[in-house]
């Protein structure tokens, strides 16, 4: 069989399916949502830094759901004299060596995820290609994104969830001299920041089935702050709030924001900060960041329902949206752990957002917004 013949057969096979018509408006709506979420996360991060200095934009590792185990060994080492260029760390998981390398230049997802420079990291040899899902664990690192020495000591970004290990990287602020990561079997991984491509960075591998208890950033003089990650029921791990010594985080409270035939979303408050997650029907979306403050803030769009879910001022009891087609939609806020949340049904296509007015219990207008 010639190459042309194989091409022809592939062409036949692939073109035999008839896709639905192009969901252009849906893609635009989702694209706008991506942009809106970027802005919301950035705005929330900045606002929270000013207000409380504890919140960080989303830092998340998605891993396959599976049984939690304590039966693993994991080590981490700084790069050695024979390490490849760009290596942040290496070590072992159950005796097998891993390494995390920040490759330059960016190869494929530059500007895909938020217009911020991101590069691929390689969870590489001597793991066999089939040991780690896809052979190389592509990771996204966002150097210096939202970092400030006074706010977030380590901007952890994670990815992976392969057969043997997932991997985490973090851009580290200048005052951090080391980071201790505690795992559920008692292992404490000490991460020494190294300068890679101009960014102080740390990295570690997390065995599948392990969970991260917390991470503490230290300066030369002592503890800076500790982050307890939020772990979704499906295993997704999110670093959000970093608490300074003595600083109290949220009490652990979980509450339902919306639950209907098409999906449900909940708010999870705890030492990790405030997170909203929609884990309906096996899919999931989640977001963790600062409170919306004086304005309502859309956090995410439900995985299945399409509802936009967000937070509102504490005094708000209802929000009235004025849709572009003239209709008004009133949603009542849900109080969870002293914060207010809301869910609003999908806006008429192709709109993602609409002018809104928030009211308190006395029916007085608290704020208006949403005019683009």
């Amino acid at each position: 069989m010639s190459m042309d013949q194989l091409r022809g057969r592939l062409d036949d096979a692939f073109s035999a399916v008839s896709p639905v018509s192009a969901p252009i408006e849906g893609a635009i709506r989702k694209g706008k949502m991506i942009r809106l979420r970027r802005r919301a996360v950035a705005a929330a991060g900045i606002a929270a830094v000013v207000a409380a200095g504890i919140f960080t934009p989303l830092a998340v590792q998605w891993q396959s759901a599976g049984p939690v185990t304590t039966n693993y060994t994991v080590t981490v080492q700084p790069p050695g004299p024979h390490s490849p260029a760009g290596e942040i760390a290496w070590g072992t998981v159950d005796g097998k060596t891993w390494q995390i390398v920040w490759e330059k230049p960016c190869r494929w997802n530059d500007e895909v995820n938020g217009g911020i420079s991101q590069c691929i990291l390689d969870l590489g040899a001597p793991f066999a290609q089939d040991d780690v899902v896809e052979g190389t664990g592509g990771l996204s690192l966002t150097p210096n994104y939202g970092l400030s020495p006074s706010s977030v000591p380590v901007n952890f970004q994670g990815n992976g969830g392969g057969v043997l290990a997932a991997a985490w990287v973090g851009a580290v602020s200048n005052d951090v001299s080391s980071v201790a990561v505690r795992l559920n079997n008692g292992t404490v991984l000490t991460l020494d920041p190294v300068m890679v491509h101009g960014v102080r960075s740390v990295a570690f591998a997390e065995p599948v089935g392990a969970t991260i208890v917390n991470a503490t950033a230290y300066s030369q003089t002592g503890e800076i702050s500790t982050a307890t990650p939020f772990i979704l029921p499906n295993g997704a791990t999110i670093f959000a709030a970093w608490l300074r010594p003595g600083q109290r985080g949220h009490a652990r409270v979980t509450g339902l924001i919306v639950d209907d035939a098409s999906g449900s979303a909940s708010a999870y408050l705890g030492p990790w900060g405030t997170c909203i997650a929609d884990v309906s029907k096996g899919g999931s979306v989640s977001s963790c960041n600062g409170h919306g403050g004086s304005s309502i803030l859309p956090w995410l769009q439900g995985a299945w329902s399409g509802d936009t879910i967000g937070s509102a001022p504490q005094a708000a009891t209802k929000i009235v949206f004025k849709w572009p087609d003239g209709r008004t939609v009133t949603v009542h806020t849900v109080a969870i752990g002293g914060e207010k949340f809301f869910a609003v049904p999908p806006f008429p296509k192709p709109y993602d957002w609409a002018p809104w007015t928030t009211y308190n219990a006395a029916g007085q207008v608290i704020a208006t917004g949403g005019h683009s």
Partner: protein
Amino acid sequence: MRAGLDEEFRAFMHGRWSAMVHLAYGLTGDLGHAEDVAQAAFAKAYASWPKVCRAGNPDAYVRQIVIHENLNRLRKRRVAEQLTDEVPERGAFDASSDDRPALMAALRRLGPRQRAVIVLRYWLDLSEAEIASTLNCSVGTVKSQASRALASLRESGQLVDEELR
């Protein structure tokens, strides 16, 4: 985004939707997944559309996202940020040619990267260097993946000739 760019995007997606779904179908072996992957790729492209336009090759850009959306989908095992809010209605499969399902079944048995190499090399006609760049691996890895994939297809009876190596 200004209206002109929106219209450009609409025209682009209208024209390239089927091609991207067919590419994703080759990579995933499942039409539903293919449509999800393609829609997510177009949504991401829209989110960065001004930059995509400035880069000058939106087709290659979206193709790249499709490929990596699929690899990420498999790597993460769960769809981490599934923005799809509705399951599209299924397209129809034209089963008039009997060997198509067998070929697709053989492709599905390949590893995701081997399948990607086959699709990129023998369907899109990309060079090994382009594939290596796309998949973020070495040319040697592309060659070995292709070799193993072709061997697997031969074993399945989908390749009966020794010409392709």
